[in-house]
């Protein structure tokens, strides 16, 4: 059994996704570098990955979020950036998590819309009804009987 010695021990890595018509990951990276304080920043196709000591990462994330709060989304990552165990080149394909991101990436514009609305109507919105709780009512038995009668010659 081979021994395992972790790299990047004690650090935190976060994904930063940008879903904006007005800013590219490259532009976001440039703005992030200015506030990096030694936090490692890696540009990706969807945004950035930032790695460093937890407090420093949190401070940087605060700055990054403020650049475009409604279009920047942040999530924890288990692996450090560029880890060969998750690298597409080594796996022969994307790790499964990437497809999960793809699934949610499609929905980010709705979330952005929700965040914009929240800012606009702060404090005065009606009681929110979460989506997904509407159950389709079952057909009334009398109504079913009527339908059957209609079908009969």
């Amino acid at each position, binding site marked *: 059994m081979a021994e395992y010695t972790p790299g990047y021990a004690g650090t935190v890595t976060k994904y930063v996704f940008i879903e904006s018509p007005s800013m590219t990951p490259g532009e976001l990276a440039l703005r992030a570098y200015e506030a990096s304080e030694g936090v490692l920043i890696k540009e990706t196709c969807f945004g950035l990955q930032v790695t460093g000591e937890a407090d420093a990462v949190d401070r940087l994330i605060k700055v990054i979020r403020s650049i475009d709060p409604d279009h920047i989304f942040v999530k924890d990552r288990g692996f450090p950036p560029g880890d060969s165990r998750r690298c*597409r080149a080594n*796996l*022969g*394909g*994307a790790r*499964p998590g990437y*497809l*999960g991101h*793809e*699934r949610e990436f499609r929905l980010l514009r709705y979330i952005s819309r929700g965040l914009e609305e929240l800012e606009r109507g702060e404090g005065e919105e009606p009681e929110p009804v979460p989506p997904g709780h509407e159950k389709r009512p079952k057909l009334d038995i009398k109504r079913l009987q009527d339908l059957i009668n209609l079908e009969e010659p």
Partner: protein
Amino acid sequence: MSRKVRIAQLSCGSEYSGVQNEIYRAAEAVDAEVFFPDIALADVERAVDAFGLDVRSADLKLMIGRGMALVEGKVDADAVFIGTCFRCAEAAIVRNELRRYIHENSRLPVVSYSFTERTTAGTLLTRMEALTTIARRRALLAREAQTGITMGIDSGSSTTKAAVMKDNEIIGTGWLPTTEVIKSAEGVVAQALEMAGLVREDIQAIGTTGYGRFLVGRHFGADLVQEELTVNSKGAVYLADHQRGASTVIDIGGMDNKAISVIDGIPGTFTMGGICAGASGRFLEMTAKRLGVDITELGPLAMKGLSKNVPMNSYCIVFGTQSLVNALAAGSSREDVAAAACHSVAEQVFEQQLQEIDIKEPVIMVGGTSLIEGLVHAMGDLLQVKVVVPPHSQYIGAVGSALLASGFIEGE
């Protein structure tokens, strides 16, 4: 050094069972690399609709998407490894249907396996080796006739066999129980050479197979050291004179069983079982011992009995033997007990392994257990086919090795 064989992995649960590294290690040991076919989310969604198997688990959907990408040629691979968690019904359905789909719609060799956290690289090694052999040595496996003077040695877990062949004829054989691997091999080689009337120097090429293949191969300076899945498939269709078209090879061994779906002499899909000794030749050996007969007499004895007269409540080698002992104590005939033992082994292989491959006739039974008439009969009953047992079937590995080894005389 040849290019690494690329094995596409279609799986669910291997990383979380802690066995992904074992899969990597097994592949590495046979100079292959495992990879995951790269597809997009839209491919998964489309594939799940097109395949028509509506499962809940997303990783199984991903398996289906990746499998279809392989069949459609969007992703290149040399072979396919399908693995899911043992005891997961949803995954078992996907594993089996995907295996069948790939087998029927492509030329890719496929092996499927259900793992637990106890699965090790060692368990997977023979399967991975077979996959890489099929991918890498198609030309060698296409050989249909033996040439020159060659010898094959099959170092099995229970017995060691040797065969000497000359100009497509078997001219010498040897057979001994495996005690010390090298010593048993030397013994059978001496027997086979003596029968052939030859000496070691006359042999132009040597092939080895079976559990002890590496050790024996090194000892004799073998030209070909090959796992038993490909060798036995080759040997079976050669001895049964059915080298073209589809066939099914069943080999119930001393320690594990092989069921191989063969096309043109090359394994397409195969399974290997080895978790339970109750489904092996070992159980029949124990039964013979308990009945006080030689293993060679068990088959004829079983043919005279009726298996249904003896209640067998367990497939386990311990509890199964106990059932037989109880039956004898309760007055069952030795014939019925012998038949019940044969039926139990056949049924277990049928239920646990033959479900994982597609049975195409001829069904060829090979290996030492194929000489146990009662077992062959029970298998034929279960499958509802006439099972073929070719001549020299007990020397299958040795003959297959000798046949393939002749490819090395001409410098292949």
